């Protein structure tokens, strides 16, 4: 119990074990785009994220009319983004760019997970590959991660 109530050590950024890089194979106007957010946000009717060290993720519908967005991330910066989650999760703007043809399409769902986790090994071995598989299945060409 004493450990559970002790303050967390400061976060230390950790470099990935291998570099990620791939060439853009299509112009933007032919590309399907998805958002990734580390704000631990979700639709109000989706399962809430656990307060800390939750390695799960949510598929958040990209349709801006799909429902109210809730931000579960515990960060102290949350008051303003909760007024308008679009400032960290611009799904309406992205849908607008698809309508005007700047991008080909938006993936049916964007991906949301908890930022600031300390379980770096499991992020690399479990969470990141799961997210990559979701993007591959959805035939996403470009994934934009908006850090929170």
């Amino acid at each position, binding site marked *: 119990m004493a450990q559970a109530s002790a303050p967390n050590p400061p976060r230390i*950024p*950790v*470099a*990935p074990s291998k*570099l*990620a*890089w*791939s060439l*853009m194979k299509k*112009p*933007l106007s032919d590309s399907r*785009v998805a958002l990734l957010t580390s704000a631990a946000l979700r639709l109000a009717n989706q399962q809430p994220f656990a307060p800390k060290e939750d390695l799960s993720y949510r598929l958040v519908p990209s349709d801006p009319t799909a429902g109210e967005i809730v931000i579960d991330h515990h*960060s*102290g*910066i*949350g*008051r*303003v*983004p909760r*007024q*308008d989650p*679009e*400032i*960290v999760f*611009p799904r*309406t*703007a*992205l849908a*607008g*760019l698809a309508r005007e043809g*700047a*991008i080909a399409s938006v993936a049916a769902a964007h991906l949301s997970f908890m930022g600031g986790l300390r379980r770096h090994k499991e992020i690399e071995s479990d969470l990141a590959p799961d997210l990559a598989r979701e993007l591959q299945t959805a035939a996403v060409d*470009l994934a*934009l*991660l*908006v850090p*929170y």
Partner: protein
Amino acid sequence: MRKVIPPRAVFVDHPVGRTFGPPHDLQRNLAVLRKVLAELPLFTGPGEIRDLGCQWESDGSRAWEDELRAEMLRDR
């Protein structure tokens, strides 16, 4: 951001948690998103961080930094 070596990273000089602008400003959301997407084809390798040249205030004022600090202390 340098430490985690993202494949393509852009810097948006906005208050933390307001990457795409102030609340309820779709035009600002769109403007930032357009800049992000336009930058992507310009990257040549991992680890590069490109500054989008975004300013929070149109006159370049950085008064928001003090306001943000106070806000974060208040909301702790």
